[in-house]
């Protein structure tokens, strides 16, 4: 990676001033019109690639706010009038009204915005759908498990980073190898274990499972961050009479806040997106959103609008977070083994 100095100055020239180091040699062939044209071509091609990559995401987001006929129009509609049909379908259970009931409903004046939207399709809202509960489950399970994974991971990472533990390399490899196991291989025994212990379809079972699932990742990533904090800071603190725990709390923790945040968000995304375990180890009480979005069914055929609404609702937080995390993406997806 080039040093920050070079990014501020045009390529080939370091920032002005005698004190600034020359971090890149000035190559004449890279400031020529031909080289500049090369960069423009790269820019245009990259824009095309980015647009092509994001068309599916865009399409899903727009389908989420299409009315039911628009969502299933053939040929597909690029221009449309936004509608809340998809979200209403996602969050509510509705019933089709008979003509007389429809007239009675239309006379009422105390209808909320959402009820009016449903009425326009001749429907009455009965109550919240199962999806509301499943979204709540997703939130509870992923947030709690993330907290646990980061907290436990931080402690282990600190110990692995700072102490000479016998067989350290082997332990770290063991921790890493647990992540390489195909989830489906351990699912059967975990399923049997959970059924025997009463953890099947329970919050605590899913929380612990996702904690373990994220723990190996959290240890590796955080160890990388802690390794970068100079050990001299703590040594100085110890000399000054701090205890180990105090040094950990007052020196190490504040230094690796960004690392903790990045780790937490990666763990959160993993738990948030997880599908296989939730499908096999929960049924109704603790089921999270990913397996349920697949099973959204409307009256008469697949409700594409609702599926798209659920998907969009589910993906948009991740898209925003990806943006916030871009600096740490490489570390996150390679277990912190490779640094940028």
């Amino acid at each position: 990676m080039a040093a920050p100095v070079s990014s501020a100055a045009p390529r080939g020239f370091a920032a002005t001033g005698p004190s600034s180091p020359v971090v890149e040699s000035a190559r004449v062939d890279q400031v020529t019109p031909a080289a500049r044209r090369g960069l423009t071509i790269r820019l245009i091609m990259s824009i095309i690639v980015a647009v092509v990559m994001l068309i599916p995401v865009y399409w899903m987001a727009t389908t989420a706010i299409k009315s039911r006929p628009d969502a299933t129009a053939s040929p597909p509609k690029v221009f449309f009038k936004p509608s809340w049909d998809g979200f209403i379908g996602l969050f509510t259970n509705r019933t089709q009204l008979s003509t007389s009931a429809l007239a009675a409903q239309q006379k009422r004046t105390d209808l909320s915005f959402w009820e009016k939207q449903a009425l326009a399709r001749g429907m009455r809202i009965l109550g919240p759908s199962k999806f509301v509960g499943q979204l709540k489950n997703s939130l509870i399970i992923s947030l709690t498990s993330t907290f646990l994974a980061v907290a436990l991971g931080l402690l282990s990472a600190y110990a692995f980073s700072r102490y000479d533990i016998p067989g350290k390399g082997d332990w770290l490899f063991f921790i890493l190898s647990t992540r390489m196991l195909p989830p489906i291989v351990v699912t059967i025994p975990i399923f049997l274990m959970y059924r025997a212990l009463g953890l099947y379809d329970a919050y605590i079972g899913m929380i612990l499972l996702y904690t373990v699932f994220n723990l190996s990742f959290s240890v590796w990533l955080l160890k990388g961050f802690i390794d970068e904090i100079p050990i001299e800071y703590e040594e100085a603190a110890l000399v000054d009479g701090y205890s180990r725990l105090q040094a950990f709390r007052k020196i190490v923790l504040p230094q690796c806040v960004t690392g903790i945040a990045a780790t937490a968000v990666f763990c959160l995304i993993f738990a948030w997106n997880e599908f296989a375990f939730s499908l096999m180890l929960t049924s109704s009480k603790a089921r999270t959103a990913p397996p349920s979005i697949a099973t959204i069914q409307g009256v008469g055929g697949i409700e594409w609008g609702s599926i798209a609404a659920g998907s969009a609702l589910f993906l948009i937080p991740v898209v925003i977070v990806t943006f916030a995390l871009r600096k740490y993406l490489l570390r996150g997806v390679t277990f912190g083994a490779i640094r940028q």
Partner: protein
Amino acid sequence: MGNTTAIAQTQPPRTGSRRQVSDGTIQKLFIMPTLILLMLWNVFPLFYSLFLSFTQYSHSGKLPPIWIGTANYDMLLSDPKVWSAFAVTGKYALLSVGGQALIGFGLALLLRAKFKASGLLTTLILIPMMLSPVVVGLFWKLIFNPLTGIFNYLIGFWNPSTAPIWLKDHALISVVIVDVWMWSPFVMLLCLSGLKAIPDYIYEAAEVDRASAWRQFRKITLPSVAPLLTLAVLFRTIEALKAFDLVMGLTGGGPGNSTEMVSVTLYRMVFQGQARTGMASALAYIMLIVIIGISNVYIWYLNRIKES
């Protein structure tokens, strides 16, 4: 390390300070919870399913596991359906990882230069890989839909009656397309970090020596990216062999057996129909052995690159 600890311990305890916790205790306290959790949730299940794989057992029945030796393995290995699932998984892994390696490496070459908004564009391209695979599978189902989807229109089939029906006629290819869309950015990210580590002066020296662009690519670029590209391909191969979420979201294994991967077969064996838990454990072990075998080939290759 040892010195500082010694110094810390020779400090006279400050008046009013809490009881000092020894370093040994801290080590144990900090590491044990993690190791215990990993043992309980990974090591124990691994041994338990090894035991189950040699038994006849159904978790929906009342009977305890009955030891039947290698009968499960014998039956699985002589079952053409299992072989077909492995063949489908292998084909899928080969096509999708191959596609990702090519496209990912290409994108890395495109984005390695620093130009206006290159950072922003890189981030935008990385978005697909952070999404939930099952949800991705679902909305691609909509995109592939012959009547209401946009895929056929985008690639130039404007007439729905003559356009291909992707999820019916080319189901496996459709899964490959989505997987490549989703994970090429991952390969790109790793390759980029390799490319950016090559110092500029090496290319300058090559330029001075009048090495052709192709020669520079072959002698400088390729060798520096090779270890990271191999690593990316290793990660992606393991993931492709485990493929479950995306397939379930997109095709559910169908139509027929055309996208029935090993993990989908496994899922059906345990959670649908007769719940053949013992046999599924055996299949899981066969899969694990295949994955370990393939990983070792890659790791051997990775070490060979590093040595040369």
